[in-house]
């Protein structure tokens, strides 16, 4: 039997992060995967980031994960969505060359000497009572470890559908793990089925781009990782085309052959990423739907048709594709399909992503009911860090909802569970203005650095970024303008702005029509505020935007910070493991909910669906009492009369 410190089952986005963070920190890791060359493969769209997802990638970068670097190494079109808005809701996104992306992930993992890739199918988990001890492979060999992280994506009893055709597998051309679910079920875990889909791919040479609208990326690509100075790959365009009412008619006529409508699939798919048949049914009044035509790589012969994920039979898919401008003669390289897979309801995990009541077993990624590469990678990283801390006896890493989207993601999963594939949205964060895409290195890097998770270069770069933005913030935030003759005339003649009362840069930025660039240029000419201008020179465009937005909306940010602070008292009231929720005054219904989630803090308990103020106040009372009990119990033995 081969021994490791940790075993990671799966080599997708979650598995890669988990395996890497563990092996870098000195743990020996086995990554069990069906095919070593599939590690880091993008199963669906060739893109990373986007709205809210871009935040997750940045947070992963700040914590020392690999997704941002891999994206920079493979990105062939970068675009910041919501660019005109603030950093709280901006969504950096990159089209990637899917082969280069997988290569980048594989290279990063290959650089870890303590990481061993084990090809094969994980058939069962091994336990000693309620502790995981290893994994048995399908060929009967056994691997042992104190920690197992399961990141199986869509491969747990994966079943693919294309029209009436069904085949076993988690991804086109690949197998499925049929028995691992039984190991999870044997632990008493509740499993469910979810569904997701992918669109057809067409040969690039068969498309007529002259009949589509080009969609270029940003003129200057903005890298994801703090380690990347600039993007060196050639940048490509995407295109836009549309479905038509004829195509919709064709879909309607063939709905009985679509597995989602024929009853062949009854699991739940993602509402925000509907299949084309779903869109046609649910939005019957829409005459056309937008389809993004995306390159799969620099030299890759295929195009990805973003917007028409489908499990309709091939003849219908072909009709739909060929109805779109520019794709009249398209040759389909691979049919779209839907895949159903097992997931574990994440209420059964604690906030470290460990299965409650089972030692050493962590779950991350789609197995927890999420969708998306970024959600998976983020969980993989957090599960990996917590498994690492478990192995070395350190404190778990649990991020607050006001600290990171990763905190919101995991808290939502373990507190609310999920019934459909969970995707991150910025609106899921109640204190969104605190979670800017620009502030990840302030918020998160120190926490990773203190655990030794950042290498020297990343640490140096994050610290220097935090220092220079803080310096610029202080200088710009301290700028005051008094309505003396000189200043007034500067504002009037250079900027056409009246100045009647003392003001600050923050206030000026709130004025409609005030542009920083125009102000800075004029100020430089006139020799106004030289020190503040000097402090901005060291900043990148993104850093400067973040600092200015922070000044402009300082009042809002401070208000959300105060609100978050108020809620923190309940977060710090911890609920001990094994706490009995059955108390007089807490209804049986509430006890069931509390037992199902087993919240770790009063704050988490208050977020459980259907929780009542009475339940919370009774819980609070007991927790306060047991807290003061602990203090007394640890008092010196010399004063036994105060014990009890």
């Amino acid at each position, binding site marked *: 039997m081969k021994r490791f410190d940790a075993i990671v089952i799966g080599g997708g986005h979650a598995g890669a992060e988990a395996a890497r963070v563990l092996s870098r920190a000195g743990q020996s890791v086995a990554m069990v995967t069906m095919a070593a060359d599939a590690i880091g493969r993008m199963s669906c769209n060739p893109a990373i980031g986007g709205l809210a997802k871009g935040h997750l990638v940045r947070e992963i970068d700040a914590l020392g994960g690999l997704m941002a670097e891999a994206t920079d190494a493979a990105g062939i079109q970068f675009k910041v969505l919501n660019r005109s808005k603030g950093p709280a*809701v901006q969504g950096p996104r990159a089209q990637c060359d899917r082969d280069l992306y997988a290569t980048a992930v594989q290279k990063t993992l290959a650089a870890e000497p303590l990481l061993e890739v084990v090809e094969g199918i994980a058939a069962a988990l091994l336990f000693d009572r309620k502790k995981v001890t290893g994994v048995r492979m399908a060929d009967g060999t056994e691997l042992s470890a104190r920690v197992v992280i399961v990141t199986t994506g869509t491969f747990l009893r994966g079943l693919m559908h294309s029209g009436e055709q069904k085949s076993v597998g988690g991804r086109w051309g690949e197998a499925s793990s049929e028995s691992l679910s039984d190991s999870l079920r044997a632990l008493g875990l509740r499993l469910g089925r979810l569904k997701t889909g992918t669109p057809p791919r067409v040969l690039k040479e068969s498309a007529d781009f002259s009949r589509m609208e080009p969609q270029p990326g940003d003129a200057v690509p903005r890298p994801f990782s703090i380690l990347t100075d600039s993007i060196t790959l050639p940048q490509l365009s995407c295109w836009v085309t549309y479905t038509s009412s004829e195509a919709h008619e064709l879909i309607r006529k063939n709905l009985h052959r679509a597995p989602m409508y024929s009853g062949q699939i009854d699991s739940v798919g993602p509402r925000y990423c509907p299949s084309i048949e779903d869109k046609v049914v649910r939005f019957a009044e829409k005459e056309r739907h937008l389809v993004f035509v995306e390159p799969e790589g620099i030299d890759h012969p295929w195009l990805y048709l973003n917007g028409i994920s489908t499990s309709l039979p091939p003849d219908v898919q072909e009709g739909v594709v060929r109805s779109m401008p520019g794709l009249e003669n398209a040759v389909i390289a691979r049919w779209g399909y839907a895949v159903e897979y097992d997931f574990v309801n994440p209420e059964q995990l604690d906030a470290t992503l460990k299965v409650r009541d089972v030692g050493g077993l962590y779950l991350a990624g789609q197995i927890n009911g999420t969708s998306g590469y970024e959600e998976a990678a983020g969980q993989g990283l957090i599960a990996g860090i917590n498994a690492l801390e478990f192995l070395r006896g350190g404190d778990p890493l649990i991020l607050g909802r006001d600290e990171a989207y990763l905190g919101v993601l995991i808290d939502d999963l373990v507190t609310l569970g999920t019934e459909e594939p969970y995707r991150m949205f910025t609106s899921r964060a109640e204190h969104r203005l605190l979670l800017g895409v620009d502030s990840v290195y302030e918020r998160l890097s120190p926490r990773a650095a203190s655990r030794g998770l950042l290498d020297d270069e990343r640490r140096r770069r994050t610290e220097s970024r935090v220092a220079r933005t803080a310096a610029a913030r202080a200088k710009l935030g301290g700028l005051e303008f008094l309505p003396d003759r000189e200043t007034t005339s500067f504002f009037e003649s250079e900027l056409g702005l009246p100045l009647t009362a003392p003001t600050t840069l923050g206030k000026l930025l709130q004025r409609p029509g005030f542009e920083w660039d125009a102000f800075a240029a004029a100020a430089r000419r006139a020799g106004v505020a030289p020190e503040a201008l000097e402090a901005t020179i060291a900043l990148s465009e993104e850093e400067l935007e973040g600092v200015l937005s922070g000044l402009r909306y300082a009042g809002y940010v401070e208000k959300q910070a105060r609100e978050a602070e108020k809620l923190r008292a309940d977060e710090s009231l911890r609920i001990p493991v094994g706490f009995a929720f059955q108390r007089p005054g807490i209804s049986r219904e509430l006890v069931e909910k509390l037992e199902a989630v087993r919240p770790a803090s009063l704050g988490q308990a208050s977020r459980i669906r259907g929780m009542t103020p009475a339940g919370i106040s009774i819980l609070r009372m007991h927790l306060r009492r047991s807290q003061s009990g602990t203090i007394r119990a640890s008092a010196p033995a010399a004063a036994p009369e105060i014990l009890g």
Partner: protein
Amino acid sequence: MSGSGLDTIVAPATPLGRSALALVRIDGPRALEMIEQLAGTTLAERVASRVTLTDDDGPIDDAIAISYVAPRSFTGNDLVEVSLHGSPAIVQRLIASLLARGARSAEAGEFTERAVMNGKIDLAQAEAIGDLIASRTALQGKLALANLGGMLSREAEEIRSALLDLLMRLESALDFADEDITFISREDLVREIGRVSSRIESLESTFTRGRATAAGITLVILGRPNAGKSTLLNMLCGTERAIVTPIPGTTRDLLRETIEIGGLPVTLVDTAGLRETDDPVESIGVTRARDAAGKGELVLYLIDASAGATREDLEFLAAEPDAIEVYTKTDLREAPPGKFGMSAVRREGVNELLELLESRIIDAFAVPEGSAAVTNERQLSALRAAHLLLSSASEASSTGSTEEIVAADLRAAAEALKALTGDISRQDVLLAIFSKFCIGK
């Protein structure tokens, strides 16, 4: 509290004093067990059972007990109501016996607090219970019942859901910016914020009437000495409340009496006649009269028709255009044309005056029957907070702030509205409200 979490509380629900019946309520996990022990029998749920309550000291009373089992009770906990014979001694015996068995005396408003905490009623409804119990007129009772029935809560919820709908569209614009859909335009956003804002404003504006109806109003009777103020007070309340003499300056201090006009309790305030005086006591009375005028919702200004309006009278009326001008002693001389006149001697004009007052009160102070209204400062301040945040959202969206900033204001406004009907995180507010109630509600 006892070590078991929620404890069992007891309190008389009717005032202590001799009466035909007295009601005692017991709430909490051991309520049923305690009464069943004293009764020596089990109680069927929601059935009036005749029981003889007996403890170690002998029989307490021959009583009727009704049990309500959680969650199907007012509080949401196990609850027993016991009807005793109305002797304070019997009530106290039962309570003492229950305390000996481990129950605790309820704090002020604790039964209602438990109902709110268990989600049986919301805060606005809990406050309506307080208003209902305190009501003195039928109209007050109707308003409290409307609010208790959830009319105010429903209106607040409707406004909040309009706000959430707007927020949802704004959030969609942020979270689905890459979709080919316009969720809401800037102009629509500003307009919709304005619409929600004006709904809040109109609910805020019910406060004048809501407070007046729930708490009543004050009518101050002013005028020069011997204008007939005390006579009028006595006529309006139908008693010889004030001392009436022909000597100017008889009334020194303020005299108050409450009657019902237009469904509202109206406190009439008789005052010292307004004049310059060297008498230190009368002088204080005059000062008090002027102060009272400033605090009253309505002012009746009396002028002796036989003496005619003086310069001071005209000055006062010019400064207080809302004061109701009344000429008295019209048996001696007619009121000037177009002016309201009355005569105490001939008993003329009193009913007309009451009608005039009633229509004024209904127009300006009474909550129309069947309407919801904000009745206290806490509710008003929740609305004001939401209103302020919406103004901030409106300003932010018209001065070009980006959507996530506007959304932050809208989200905070929705939270503020939640405070109207109750919010888990506001324990301090809860405590303040419940301490206003008396025991046993």
